[in-house]
């Protein structure tokens, strides 16, 4: 299997504080990789290094075969990113937001129209195309953000807590959307701190205080630690690394 994202001892410090500590990780093409961790574990910081928003302090990383140190612009053409905070233009309509990002990614006019139609269909937002973004319910805003991240058809998509703040039903349907997106052959890198969501992932990585403390398919992790849910696995791992520290 081809590797989409590869890191070796990737580290980021803010002053004397180490937010991401020597993370080594491989994510394969077409995978839904879940990235778990408590608040402040370093998930967003790791994603920001992989998307070229932050320079690493040390270590290596390749995304879509390009190096984060010198080729971040090439990486940017091949990734979609949905940041943790909702960040589309609230004073543009849903459709205008898509048109804008299409233009930014250098798509032609007809391509933009075509992609817009496909994506509105994909995320189920056609009825709301003309609505002002600020008037959409949060769940729909997040679908729109996903549509924007997918507009230029990137092979790798980073979703940073895409379901925070929405009700369980909307979370469920957003995960359906993630599955459908994976079926298009894309690699999805999804952070969350909902343990039930971890069950939906092909593989998960569990992060604690900047360190990657376990990586594997949810089934295997549950067997390995002899637990019945990812929630229990997470708590057990947490306790053992607290004791180690």
């Amino acid at each position, binding site marked *: 299997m081809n590797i989409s994202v590869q890191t070796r001892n990737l580290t980021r410090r803010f002053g004397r504080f180490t937010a991401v500590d020597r993370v080594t990780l491989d994510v394969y093409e077409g995978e839904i990789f879940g990235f778990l961790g408590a608040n402040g574990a370093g998930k967003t910081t790791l994603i920001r290094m992989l998307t070229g928003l932050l320079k690493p302090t040390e270590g290596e990383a390749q995304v879509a075969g390009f190096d984060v140190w010198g080729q971040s612009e090439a990486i*940017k053409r091949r990734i979609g990113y949905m940041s943790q*905070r909702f960040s589309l233009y609230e*004073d543009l309509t849903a459709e205008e937001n898509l048109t804008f990002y299409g233009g930014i990614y250098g798509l032609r006019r007809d391509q933009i129209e075509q992609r817009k139609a496909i994506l509105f269909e994909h995320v189920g937002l056609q009825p709301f195309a003309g609505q002002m973004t600020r008037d959409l319910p949060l769940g729909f805003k997040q679908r729109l953000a996903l549509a924007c991240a997918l507009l230029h058809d990137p092979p790798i998509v980073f979703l940073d807590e895409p379901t925070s703040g929405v009700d369980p039903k909307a979370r469920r349907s957003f995960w359906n959307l993630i599955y459908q997106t994976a079926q298009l052959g894309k690699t999805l890198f999804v952070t969350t701190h909902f343990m039930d969501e971890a069950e939906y992932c092909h593989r998960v990585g569990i992060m604690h205080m900047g360190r990657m403390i376990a990586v594997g398919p949810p089934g295997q992790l549950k067997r390995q630690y002899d637990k019945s849910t990812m929630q229990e696995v997470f708590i057990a791992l947490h306790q053992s690394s607290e004791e180690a520290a």
Partner: protein
Amino acid sequence: MQQILYLMWKEFKQVFRTREMLSIIFVAPMIQMLVLGFAISTEVKNVSLIITDFDRSSTSREILRAFEHTDRFRIVGYESSYRGIDNAIHRWHAQMAIVIPPNFGRDLQRGLQPEVLLIVDGLDGNTAGVALGYATGILRQFGQMVLRQRMLARPDAAIPVHQVVAEDRMWYNLDLQPEQYMIPGIVVLLITIISMLLSAMSMVREKEIGTMEQLMVTPLKRYQIILGKILPFLILAFVELGIVLVVAQFIFSIRIVGSYALLAGLAFLYLFATLGLGIFISTITQTQQQAMFVSWFFLIFMILMSGFFIPIENMPPLLQKITYINPMRYFMYIMREIFQKGSTFPFLLKDLVPMTVFGLLIFTFSVLKFQKRLA
């Protein structure tokens, strides 16, 4: 190129959908111009004047008539003592007093040089200076008239040298019309505000709501983001310039004497400095509130150090030196020159060059400081 156009399209959409932005751009300038323009002009028109005539001769009455016959002054009372004058000025009843000493008429006839005393409320330095200018003008005219009459009456008499008055004529703003002087300054303030404050605010707003982070993970080049963000405000600054020139012409009847094309070209050079500052402010602030605060700090410094309110010649030497690093100082001067004298390019070079150099320095520095990355 396409990317920049999309950024601009988005920016204009946002501006035209935000009522506050629209009012900052189109309504506020009109109001500011009208208020500033008219407030300043009426003040210097009807200066309230107290008269104290200790002489009571036909000569003194003639002088006073000259003051009555101009709309520059409005006679608000007669006092017979300095105490009375002091009181009137203190109570804001009068802004100026003219005191004609005893025997003034007789001394003048004898060829002595009697003096008229002018007392001005210096609290409002601008008005005081202008009013004093009018009053000395009137007195000087009167003095010359008396001189001429004496020469006519006694053609053989030698004119004592010390009686020849040097006249410092106002060459350009002939009537010392304060609007002539203030309006170009107001125009400078308005286009500075729109280009610097609004571009800074709009960039920081994207930081605040997180869309800047989203733009940074796209393949947009740094220069594309910057141009896409500042070109709309460059265009708006020119629209604003057009609006205020129209207002100046139709409401204040002030036409610029010089060339519109030159004005526009130099404004373009000036906008490098202000847009550069806008970018700079957006790189050192995180929220719109901070950006607003920092922008006003810069604006107040620039305005005070530009000669808009306080003429630069009247500043202490140290402050005068500081004004040389202020791009607004140069543009203020250039605008007044083009507006009033119709100065042409070669005559403006000495201010144009430092303005452009500072502008480009600020712009380059800010563009380099703007990174397509967080922290």
